[in-house]
């Protein structure tokens, strides 16, 4: 709920937050206030994929980012990374290639907020790793290290398919996602196919994305229904399992085979119908009368004959 409040209207909330902070911490320095705001934004938006000084997660470690890139470049990349890659910005393309061509979702943040985050990162980058760890609560720090049990996989599958409801009453993953797994049929096609999500993003990254989705639509969908940590673990376990065994599973196909099976079924039904009504009256009883008639539109000589006569 803490995040949820912020996500209702990030601009409004951050402004109110700013005012509140201003009132409460009146004596703090200006930079300190900026740091607090940057920390909040980083916590709710960036932390799913990025660390500061703890190595790469889904995306790169942001320690010392302000020394490697210009402030303007960072602001633009956060706002519209896809556009930059498309426009061929060499540094953006390099990062995109480096990180398995994973797309960083465009963030709906103001330039000021992004600058606050950069400021925050700069501050944290200056301190030791231990200190930063104390400051940032990283939701993925427990994931991945656990052993995957069969119970977890089974629970994860149930949660994924929605046969077991998420405690937060959020929508089941299958509404939008699909995986290649023989016992999971008809996954949604609204969002990413998740078969190899764990090998692409790492279990920690996946868990972070489940707990704190960085994608706008998913974020909106779970804003009042944050997935709890044990459930996220089970889902990660299931997705890891799916990733491991996906080579041996039937591929999910909505292509030509679906169309062909539909057509075959249609043809079978037509055949069945014509068998049931095999004695039906097909043509008119007046066929013999019609057949001997000359039709003005179908007789090619009709008009010619007329024209010839006319010219005479």
């Amino acid at each position, binding site marked *: 709920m803490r995040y949820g409040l912020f996500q209702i209207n990030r601009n409004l909330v951050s402004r109110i937050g700013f005012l509140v902070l201003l009132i409460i911490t009146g004596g703090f320095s200006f930079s300190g206030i900026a740091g607090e705001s940057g920390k909040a934004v980083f916590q709710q938006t960036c932390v799913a994929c990025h660390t500061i000084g703890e190595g790469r997660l889904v995306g790169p470690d942001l320690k010392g980012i302000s020394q490697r890139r210009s402030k303007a470049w960072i602001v633009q990349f956060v706002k519209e990374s896809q556009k930059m890659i498309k426009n061929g910005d060499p540094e953006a393309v390099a990062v995109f290639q480096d990180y398995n061509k994973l797309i960083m979702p465009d963030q709906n943040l103001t330039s000021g907020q992004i600058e606050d985050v950069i400021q925050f990162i700069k501050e944290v980058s200056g301190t030791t790793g231990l200190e930063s760890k104390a400051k940032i609560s990283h939701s993925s720090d427990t994931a991945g290290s656990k052993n995957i049990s069969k119970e977890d996989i089974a629970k994860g599958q149930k949660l994924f398919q929605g046969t077991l409801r998420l405690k937060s009453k959020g929508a089941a993953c299958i509404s939008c996602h699909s995986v290649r797994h023989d016992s999971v049929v008809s996954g949604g096609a609204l969002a990413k196919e998740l078969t190899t999500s764990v090998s692409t993003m790492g279990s920690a990254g996946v868990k972070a994305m489940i707990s704190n989705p960085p994608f706008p639509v998913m974020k909106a969908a779970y804003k009042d229904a944050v997935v709890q940590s044990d459930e996220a673990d089970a889902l990660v376990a299931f997705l890891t399992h799916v990733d491991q065994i996906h080579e041996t599973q039937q591929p999910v196909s909505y292509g030509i085979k679906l169309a062909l099976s539909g057509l075959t079924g249609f043809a079978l039904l037509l055949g069945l119908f014509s068998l049931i009504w095999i004695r039906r*009256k097909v043509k008119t*009883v*007046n066929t013999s*009368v019609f057949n001997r*008639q000359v039709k003005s539109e179908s007789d090619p000589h009709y008009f010619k004959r007329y024209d010839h006569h*006319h010219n005479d």
Partner: protein
Amino acid sequence: MNVRSQVSMLFHLDKCIGCHTCSVACKNIWTDRKGSEYMWWNNVETKPGTGYPGKWEDQEIYKGGWQKKGDGIELKGAGKKRGLVNIFHNPNMPNIDDYYEPFTYKYLDLIESPEGHDQPTARPVSLITGKPIDIKMGPNWDDDLSGSPDYARNDPNLKELSPAEQEAMFQLERMAFYYLPRICNHCLNPACVAACPSGAIYKRGEDGVVLINQDVCRAWRMCVTACPYKKTYYNWHTGKSEKCILCYPRIEAGLAPACMHSCVGRIRYLGVMLYDADRIHEVASCDESALVKQQIDMIMDPFDSEVIASAKANGVTDSTIKAAQYSPTYKFVKEWNLALPLHPEYRTLPMLFYVPPLLPVMASMREINQDDQKEKLSSVSKKWDDNWLYDTSTEELWGSIEQARFPLKYLASLFSAGDEEKVKDRLKKMMAVRIYRRWKTVGDVTEEKAKHALRDVGLSTKMADDIYYLTALAKFEDRFVIPPAHREEAVELLEFTGDHKGEVGFGPSKSVQRGS
């Protein structure tokens, strides 16, 4: 005994000249609306011929009427099980081409076309699509003079005739035909009523007219296939089925139905007949050879006191019973045994009757050896290609009927479920009356021969005189004997007339406003 009354029409086919006035009168009154242009509640078709809609008599195509099943009967194409299976797709449904696509002409083109090299023409346009069409068919297409081979030789009634007999029928010298006017038969055992899944069709209690309730009809069109006479039609515009209503609004007001009223040849007779409704099931399921006799037996004597008592108990009014006693149809059908129902083998117990035509039967055709004649003829210019002799001379009294040029088998297929004797019996009676009248008026036949003829067929001179009168001289009041409806009874169904005592008139009227 459960006596009810039925308004029943009789057609004297010898008098029909095929002018179609009845059809036109009916169309002008009832079926000139959108969606009903193709309907001919009354139509006149040439026989032999396939009729309208094409081959309506072939129940292997349309699956109309009833068929025997064990001791009882079942619908041939509908009924509970078969009807349910086919309820969304009736496989025997006639389509518009079995009737014809109704059309009109663009008459305005004749007067509004710009000046050109050619005469403007009025192109035919479909009354269904509104687009120009090639007219392919009409209600009497290929009709008359026994019509084209496509029309006449596909007559389902020719099935029983040998190829030689059929061939002979269509040779120019012996070609014979007659007209068959048809309306709804207002059957006692109507297949349309039985087939309707919505229960929209009913047989009216007071006069037996079969009607479709337009509010209840749900366009299943089971009646269209179930009626073996193809006399219910589907209105594609209103989405309801319609049929001949025997002009009941006219009958109730004491007027003859439009078809009858306009009939030039005065071939139609309309009268009341009383029948025993308890016997319907028994008669409809009896053996095919007994169908006609049983059906005529069902019609009760209107002078019998028991019959009258039962009729009164059923609410038949005195005026109706009196009309039944003077009924021209009763005389033709029951007293004189001169009429037959159309296709009784469909087991719907049709209550319209036909006096079979004597006219096409007048000359005979015999098979003889023409070899002597052939030798006399040049092989180039002329040759005999048949062995038939067209013969109008008769030495014996009934010679021309027994060796008729028009096979009795054909008439029997239409009117008596194949029983030639019944047709022959009717024709002989008509011939006897003719011989009797010839003795009376022309005098070239001896009295002895005339009386002999009547005796042979079991007619008294009184009966012969009556037949002659009703056939040739009858006035409108003799041909149309139907009492007007009792309005007071209809009103009493709705309300108690005593409620209106002191007010003006019957019926749902407003109370009179009086000055203050």
